[in-house]
């Protein structure tokens, strides 16, 4: 409510004073508690200029929101800025000339020098021009463990995936859901991806997802991964929630032992005022091989006719990547900043672990950067069925998966 009245006041002020002020409608799908707190950092910073942030949050996760976002852009009624996962989601929109070219301000701000890893900027680049601002690095490769749940079950908090599997029966006996996995398909698919990297190794993952090697996808190494997932899904039975943050809430409350989820889950722990290392633990790469994937969120700016709006769009773009905003936003969001030159001493233990791994260069690209939306959503369909329907055997799921990889472009 406070935020709302602050926004109203800002709107009134801006409307009264500035002449060149523009109202920018910004769409995104950050609706959980931690996410909303993070996006408020953007909004407040932008409202502190002469412009106004008009929030267009869309609930239901990226899958739902992207539909609404894309249909508006191609319907000729674009918003002024929008979140998307950079990579291939906006490819065709850029090719159709619907997005604003940000190359000039990128050059001016020296983005190529400050963005780390620079691969993030490459994902924004089409034909040498830059079309988006990366705002954070999100890694999927984490498992979040509830200290309370393991204490209740009378076992130690595991240090890696194998120990977690060993502890699962004790959790079950204590009436806990060992592994919380929300019902939405992207969550099943994400958890699969993390297990894929942890169990199958980075090389296998790269072969399949980057080189689209269908033979590897159908091969015996991958079969091991599917077996492991087939085992893990049994731990997730009884997660009767849809949204990822409700599954995270189960970990926070100690109803679930753990959750495989990207580092945005940290925002929820922060909102619940839990302390890393005391109330919960985080294991990058499931404690097997410490690695982070460098996906993330980026903002795109659909082309507008109005030069005043365009100026404001560029101003917002600059603001999003500016050091202070990067710090404020990423601390709330639980993600890593996209620039290596800022001080994150306020970061908690988990974020620091992430920063160390990032510095060591142990990184891999995110699924969204290498697979098209079409392929991604096909995989999601297979995975959500595999996780939820125990009658689907690992071999069947692997066959469907390999077929999708064979068709992927």
């Amino acid at each position, binding site marked *: 409510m406070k935020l709302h009245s602050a926004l109203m006041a800002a709107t009134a002020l801006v409307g009264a004073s500035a002449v060149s002020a523009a109202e920018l409608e910004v769409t995104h799908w950050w609706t959980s508690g931690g996410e909303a707190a993070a996006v408020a950092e953007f909004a407040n910073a932008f409202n502190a200029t002469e412009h106004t942030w008009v929030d267009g949050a869309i609930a239901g996760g990226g*899958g*739902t929101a*992207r*539909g*609404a976002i*894309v*249909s508006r852009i*191609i319907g000729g009624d674009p918003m002024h800025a929008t979140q998307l996962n950079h990579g291939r*989601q906006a*490819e*065709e*929109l850029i090719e*159709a000339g619907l997005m604003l070219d940000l190359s000039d301000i990128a050059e001016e701000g020296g983005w190529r020098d400050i963005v780390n890893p620079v691969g993030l900027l490459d994902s924004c680049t089409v034909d040498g021009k830059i079309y988006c601002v990366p705002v954070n690095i999100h890694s999927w490769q984490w498992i979040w463990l509830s200290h309370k749940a393991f204490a209740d079950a009378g076992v130690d908090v595991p240090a890696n995936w194998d120990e977690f599997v060993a502890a699962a029966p004790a959790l079950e006996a204590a009436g806990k859901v060992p592994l919380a996995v929300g*019902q*939405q398909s992207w969550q099943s698919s994400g958890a699969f991806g993390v297990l894929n990297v942890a169990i199958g190794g980075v090389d296998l993952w790269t072969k399949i997802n980057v080189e689209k090697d269908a033979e590897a996808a159908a091969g015996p190494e991958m079969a091991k991964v599917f077996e492991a997932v087939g085992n893990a899904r049994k731990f997730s039975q009884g997660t*009767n929630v*849809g949204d990822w943050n409700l599954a995270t809430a189960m970990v926070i409350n100690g109803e679930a032992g753990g959750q495989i989820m990207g580092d945005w889950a940290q925002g929820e722990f922060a909102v619940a005022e839990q302390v890393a290392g005391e109330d919960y633990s985080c294991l990058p790469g499931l404690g097997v091989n410490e690695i982070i994937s460098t996906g993330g969120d980026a903002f795109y700016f659909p082309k507008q006719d109005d030069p005043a709006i365009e100026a404001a769009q560029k101003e917002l773009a600059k603001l999003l990547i500016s050091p202070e905003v990067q710090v404020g936003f990423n601390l709330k969001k639980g993600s890593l900043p996209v620039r290596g030159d800022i001080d994150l001493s306020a970061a908690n233990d988990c974020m620091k672990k992430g920063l160390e791994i990032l510095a060591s260069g142990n990184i891999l690209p995110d699924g969204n950067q290498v697979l*098209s*939306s*079409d392929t*991604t*959503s*096909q995989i999601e*369909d*297979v995975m*959500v*069925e*595999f*996780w*939820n*329907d125990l009658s689907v055997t690992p071999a069947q799921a692997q066959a*469907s998966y390999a*077929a999708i990889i064979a*068709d992927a472009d």
Partner: protein
Amino acid sequence: MAEAKRPIRLLRNMNSKIAAIPMILTAMVVFIGCTVWTVVYSFTKSRLLPKLDFVGFDQYERLWNSNRWLISVENLFIYGVCSLVLSLLIGFLLAVMLDQKIRFENTIRTIILYPFALSFVVTGLVWQWLLNPDFGVQNVVRSLGWQSFTFDPIYDANIVIFGILIAAIWQGSGLIMVLMLAGLRGIDEEIWKAARVDGIPKWKTYVVVIIPMMKPVFITALVLISSGIIKVYDLVVAQTNGGPGLSSEVPAKYVIDNMFRAQNLGQAFAASTMMLLGVLIILALFGLTQIRGRKNAS
């Protein structure tokens, strides 16, 4: 309408033609034009933007190889058959019940019909809450002492489609009841008297005499129910969002998800064309029975 002077043909009835322009545009541009457009583009490999890159039946091949589509079709079939049979049956039985000169008939009719005023989104959210195993029916029955009671049509993949069915019947059966009641009230009292004189039991009178007489009402109800079945979308989105897994997916959702989420227009168009084909087949069958019925009657 004989007129003294006959203006040239196009100008005749000019006002009427002008007034009908919105209707003509809707019929030709939207219903015919858009449908043809979609069918044409279903043979292309359009992704995010429609492009005329023809790929023959590739999209259809992929569609029928897609597990999710097969589940959607199967769900629609189960839901369709059950909802058709149950709606007709329940609607008719409720109408018969209300036709027994019971007290408070108006109140009871109001109670049965009010869900029809509510949207599918509202319906889905209410039943999601009511059937939620941790809070709803299952929990309440268990707290009454029946610990092993299991009824979870939200998270149990095997019965989730029946949870949607329960909600749909709750929402729509009132309408069918009203139609049937109107049909029952339209039947001549003499027929009841004659049946009583002949000593035919009441239930038999309904089955043998009344139902055949109400054929037009049944057909109307049938058309109403089936046109609603193929459109089922909001209810699923609100109640289960297709889950758990893919177990409550429906074709309409497959289309929308492919159109906007997966950014594969060609696939979405192929799926919607299949939906259209399904409707055409049903309409054709329906037309056929009508023609045959007329032949038999003459």
